[in-house]
């Protein structure tokens, strides 16, 4: 019997966004999003907490080879979203509202697909993805819940 453990790593990224739904009028957008609708946007230091689950390798003692997880996070998280405008520079350019809910859903979708490729056992998986937008706001998405970003 091999213990199953959960390994978590936190990454920080800084990005700007503006919450504005194209399907709403300017007045409705202001009413819905308040100061988050400021036309020039605003930014956050986001913390992304990635929890993966799997058997502890009896030789290395690891659930996941952390440098591989860090490389995945660099490629799919930091290179794509850090120091970016979520509205203009990323997958959200276009019709998505880059709310942190939608960012969480997009990042979870990527890591749910990519984490199992990090080792050969086929047993490593994403367990939960958490994004803290500020110290007071956070979003958790367990990976058994399959969901899609919401189109505006």
């Amino acid at each position, binding site marked *: 019997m091999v213990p199953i*453990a*959960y390994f978590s790593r936190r990454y920080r990224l800084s990005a700007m966004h503006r919450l504005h739904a194209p399907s709403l009028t300017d007045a409705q957008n202001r009413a819905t999003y308040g100061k988050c609708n400021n036309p020039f946007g605003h930014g956050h230091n986001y913390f992304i907490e990635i929890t993966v689950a799997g058997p502890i390798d009896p030789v290395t003692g690891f659930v996941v080879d952390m440098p591989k997880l860090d490389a995945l996070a660099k490629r799919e998280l930091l290179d794509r979203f850090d120091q970016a405008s979520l509205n203009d520079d990323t997958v959200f350019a276009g019709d998505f509202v880059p709310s942190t809910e939608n960012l969480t859903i997009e990042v979870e979708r990527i890591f749910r697909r990519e984490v199992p490729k990090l080792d050969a056992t086929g047993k490593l998986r994403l367990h939960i993805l958490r994004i803290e937008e500020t110290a007071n706001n956070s979003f958790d998405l367990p990976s058994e819940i399959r969901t899609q970003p919401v189109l505006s």
Partner: protein
Amino acid sequence: MIFLTRKAEFSSAHFYRNPAWSEEKNREVFGKCANANGHGHNYTLEVTVGGEVDPITGFVVDLKLLKDILEEQVVSVYDHRHLNHEVPEFASVVPTTENIAVAIWRRLDGKIPNAKLHRVRVYEMDDLFADYYGEEA
């Protein structure tokens, strides 16, 4: 059932090495952590137990008692020690954060009166931690 969490801290040295491997292989797999002299961390332990509230005391478990159990079973054994050299469970097991969580679970399981051990979380650093819920496969 209500869950209750108690934190404790310990500062320990460790290294990651497999004695059956060459120096090169250890460096390749474990990187800087393979330094045979070791390095150290301030670990934070969070132990979560679940149980029913005692109608007289209002407690699930007496927190002072839980603190004493963590001190006796874990902190007094791990704190200011070299995990590889001085803690028996790591004589032949690599003291990764994952394995430390499992070892602490095994030290505590069944020793907390009136409550069931739910989760052992070990922070090696603010941005790296492992959870163990007693699962095996």
